[in-house]
């Protein structure tokens, strides 16, 4: 077995990187053995999983990797079908570059905000470099916390068309249930009927990618 590796990257904090990583991983776990690598020094993914109860553990193992990244990834690729890496929220660390280079697909959660879009420009230029010589490498922007009634949210598609990196059709709306899931140490798949729309959003993204 050789895992498909997804890196969730962002040039700035607060884009919902860990929320996307954890829920996306939980959705992938329904399709195959999945591992989350928490490469963010803030350790939010690890913290999230640690809040799970013994009766309802988080469905994915979460490990923390600080150094020797390439070697560690190689080891885990044999044992899992999917690996999701939660990258540090900056390009100023080597780990982010290594995590993106190790990925088959990079997902870039982007909030419907000008500041987030501008931050994405530099990340996009780094990804263009990673793409060189790797025809199967893919990268996508994912709109997170979309508010369908807000003018900025509705203008996002036009703004994202300026990037060389395509945006996924699937997106995540701004929903309290994502924050509640983190607090309970579970994914939106385990939050019952009220979380069904959120779970559907994650499943849509997975289906678009696999």
């Amino acid at each position: 077995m050789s895992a498909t590796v997804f890196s969730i990257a962002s040039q700035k904090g607060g884009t919902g990187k860990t929320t996307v990583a954890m829920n996306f991983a939980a959705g992938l776990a329904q399709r195959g053995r999945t591992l989350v690598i928490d490469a963010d020094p803030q350790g939010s993914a690890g913290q999230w999983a640690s809040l799970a109860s013994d009766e309802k553990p988080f469905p994915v193992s979460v490990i923390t990797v600080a150094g020797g990244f390439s070697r560690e990834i190689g080891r885990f690729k044999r044992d899992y079908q999917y690996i999701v890496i939660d990258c540090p929220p900056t390009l100023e660390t080597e780990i982010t570059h290594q995590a993106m280079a190790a990925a088959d697909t990079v997902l870039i959660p982007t909030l419907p905000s000008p500041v987030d879009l501008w931050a994405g420009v530099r990340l996009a230029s780094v990804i263009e470099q990673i793409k060189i010589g790797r025809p199967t490498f893919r990268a996508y922007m994912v709109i997170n916390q979309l508010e369908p009634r807000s003018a900025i949210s509705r203008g996002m598609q036009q703004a994202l068309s300026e990037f060389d990196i395509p945006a996924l059709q699937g997106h995540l709306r701004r929903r309290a249930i994502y924050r509640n899931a983190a607090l309970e140490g579970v994914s939106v798949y385990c939050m019952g009927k009220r979380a069904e729309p959120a779970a559907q959003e994650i499943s849509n993204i997975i289906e678009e990618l696999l």
Partner: protein
Amino acid sequence: MSTKKQVGSKLASSVRQAKVQQKQQSKQKSVADKPSEPVERSTSLITSKRVWPD
């Protein structure tokens, strides 16, 4: 023009501007990273000749 289109155009234009800025910054960085021309250094401790008056 609808508000949606106005905001979309404004956002798109700001992204184009950010891309230009990013290109300029990368260019400046590559110039700054370029090693400077080698400077000929004197190995001697005497760096200037003193000419004594006759």
